[in-house]
């Protein structure tokens, strides 16, 4: 009986996923399910493979071991990585315009509204190269408001934001999952949100001796 609603709420099944980079196993036996309304917080030390995991799930990095299966092949994803995908020589408005044209498109009014939401009113026609690091991050975050997507992949989305910005962004995350979206994010900050699910990569590090090294 429960299979029908199950199929509609499940977005992504991850089964026994592992990742190897430069002959080093970053994580293994990683299995979890991403459902609508989920907010997964991926934790781990520097170099634990958080970014790689996000890139694997978003489809930017190949999956060699294990399985990543989309239950809704048409689910729209929005990936925001360390590199913001902004062009320094374009204005905030122009950047958003072309980023939005990759998904649904946008109107000038929508873009201005999104920029106002992220606190950049009055900076719409400023070149991104003239903005501060935090403001650039905010321009990129305006995509969350502008481009509707089912799943948000956010890699350290709080970087260079001020306290107020972090609080506001957490509210957007909350709204997104309440509206049936899903979020998978990495952050070294602790999140102040209920129903957060934690995926700790340090629990998936292989317990084996270091690789053979030549005797020195």
């Amino acid at each position, binding site marked *: 009986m429960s299979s029908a609603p199950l199929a509609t709420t499940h977005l992504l099944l991850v089964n026994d996923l592992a990742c190897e980079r430069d002959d080093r196993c970053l994580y293994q036996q990683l299995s979890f399910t991403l459902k609508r309304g989920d907010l997964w917080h991926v934790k781990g030390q520097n170099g634990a493979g958080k970014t790689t995991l996000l890139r694997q799930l978003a489809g930017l990095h190949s999956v060699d071991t294990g399985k990543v299966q989309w239950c809704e092949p048409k689910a729209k994803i929005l*990936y925001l990585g360390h*590199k*913001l995908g*902004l*062009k320094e020589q*374009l204005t905030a408005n*122009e950047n958003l315009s*072309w980023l939005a*044209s990759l998904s649904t498109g946008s109107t000038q009014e929508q873009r201005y509204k999104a920029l106002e939401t992220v606190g950049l009113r009055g900076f719409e026609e400023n070149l991104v190269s003239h903005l501060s690091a935090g403001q650039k991050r905010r321009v990129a975050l305006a995509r969350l408001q502008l481009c509707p997507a089912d799943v948000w992949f956010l890699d350290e989305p709080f970087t260079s934001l001020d306290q107020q910005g972090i609080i506001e962004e957490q509210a957007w995350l909350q709204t997104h999952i309440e509206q049936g979206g899903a979020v998978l994010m990495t952050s070294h900050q602790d999140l102040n949100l209920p129903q957060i699910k934690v995926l700790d990569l340090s629990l998936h590090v292989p317990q084996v001796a270091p690789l053979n090294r030549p005797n020195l």
Partner: protein
Amino acid sequence: MMAFVMAIVKRDLLLILRQPADILNPLVFFILVVALFPLGVSPEASILAPTAAGIVWVAAMLATLLSLELMFKLDHEDGSLEQLLLAPYPGWSLVLAKVLVHWLISGLPLVLLSPLIASMLFLPLHALPTLMLSLLIGTPTLSLFGAIGAALVTGVRGGGMLLTILILPLYVPVIIFGAASVAAAVQGMPIDGYIAILGAMLVFALMITPWASSAALKL
């Protein structure tokens, strides 16, 4: 699909308009190489005219090589490439858009500049249409083949050198037939065969590049 291609083309042309130095560099290089030949070799028409076709083609190829590395590099560095690859459109349309932009800013200006360049080298006037036609067919081929190499070295530090070595073998046939067609026209011989082979290479490049280049981008 068309909207996706147009969005990329529009954005890239706007970027070039804002920062024209990157793009003007290969064109200036093209003109300089050709302009230096009469100074370095000889200003005599009898010496320059027979070599004009070869010089123009070699300079065009070098100018193309110079601008190739930037095809995907800037997008890779600022993260735009990730966003482009994640867009719900096939990778080959991204490659075609990038190739189109590259040709518009490197190949097309070379074609348009070629009459000026040819007259500097005393190329007989009756061979000029052939030079322009061969460049018109040949330069898109150079951009297309180049996209494979540019995609392969994206994200590789110091990839420029590698790119040149990778791509040169693919460029050699284009330059041979391109220059030979002009040489034939200078002597008043038929050029149909050369142009047909240049056209065949363009079609071949159109067939394999979008596929090969988008596969390389996803590596």
